[in-house]
């Protein structure tokens, strides 16, 4: 039984400087160090290039993005390990979650 996320919760904002981070698939340091696998790497969608031409070693073929930022804890392991300082994480101030009251969680304000 999975309980839904608390509505209204603010998740960390993760920004990646794509000018600095050019070959994430080769470097993959941040991808492998993240305990929650927040960061994902994906192929840039392109009509012209076929997959066989999308060499991960070439700049700009793959991009890093924060796919699961709801799970980011702000532990900064990825920032410590990044060789080019491309990742910035802004964790919003957390509101103290009140004890649950029946009905309250579901948007009755």
């Amino acid at each position, binding site marked *: *039984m999975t309980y*839904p996320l608390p509505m209204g919760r603010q998740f960390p904002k993760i920004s990646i400087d794509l000018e600095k981070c050019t070959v994430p698939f080769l470097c993959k340091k941040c991808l492998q160090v993240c305990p929650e696998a927040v960061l994902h790497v994906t192929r840039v969608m392109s009509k012209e290039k076929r*997959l066989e031409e999308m060499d991960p070693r070439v700049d700009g073929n793959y991009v890093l993005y924060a796919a699961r930022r709801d799970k980011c804890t702000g532990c900064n392991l990825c920032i410590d390990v990044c060789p080019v300082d491309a990742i910035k994480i802004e964790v919003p101030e957390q509101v103290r979650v009140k004890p649950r009251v029946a009905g309250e969680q579901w948007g009755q304000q």
Partner: protein
Amino acid sequence: MCWMCDQFGDPEYGNGVWYLNPRNYARNMYKLRAPGEGFKGAEAGLETGARSGPGIGDLLNAVEKNDYAEYHRITGFMQGRGQGSQIVPLEHADRVLELSSPIGLIACICRKGARAIDERNELEYTCMGMGVGMLKWERWPERYKGGVSFVNIDEAIEWNHEMDRRGFVHILMLFGAPFIGGFCQCDYPDCGALRNAVDFGIGSLKSHYVAVVDYDKCNGCGICAQRCQWGALKFEVTNEKANIDLFKCYGCGLCQTGCPRGAIEMKWRADVPAVAEVWT
């Protein structure tokens, strides 16, 4: 019985479990996909379907905006587009592999995305595709991330048992219900299907079994606790035995296949009244 069984099951085969119904493996099933938004079929483009419609990012935005209506709409869309999945225990996995053809080993796209693991040959492949859709992979190997290695039923079952030994959960993937197009070997947090199920309760149906511990046989070795991907099984310190939360248990059967003493029994979900209809 889950709602997939209500729609696609046949009482004559496998107690009415939908994925044991041979009709769901028919060749023409590939064309009989669910119509409508987000699933136009292979003719509309090779990557249609999987990438269309709202995603997890939109779901998170809705949570941040405290917009429950939008949250509900997105989860409803994700459940309804016929691209769900179901967890199956190992013995049912063997029977599925006997029914389906052709079967091909492929690279896992989730591990590639989450951990940048590049599986380039058949010795590294950790995912399985099945059904006539695999012929498309053979035809356009350059388009489909690393090609495909076709195997026969015995090889597929042996491979699947090896994956089970390593500790992967077996998840049937639907590509337009009830067409079964893939057979994922998942773990947390790398795999999308398993992760959506654990984090948001969407996408996957639980299996038709739940795992129950026989306390007389359990000696508290803790091997099963390492194999549970769902956070359902833990080592209970008080009485030094394994403890399974049946509400969280997805019935993948990894704890059962890993137990050296046979202390875990897979119980038919419908026989446990409180969790009989807990499918997410």
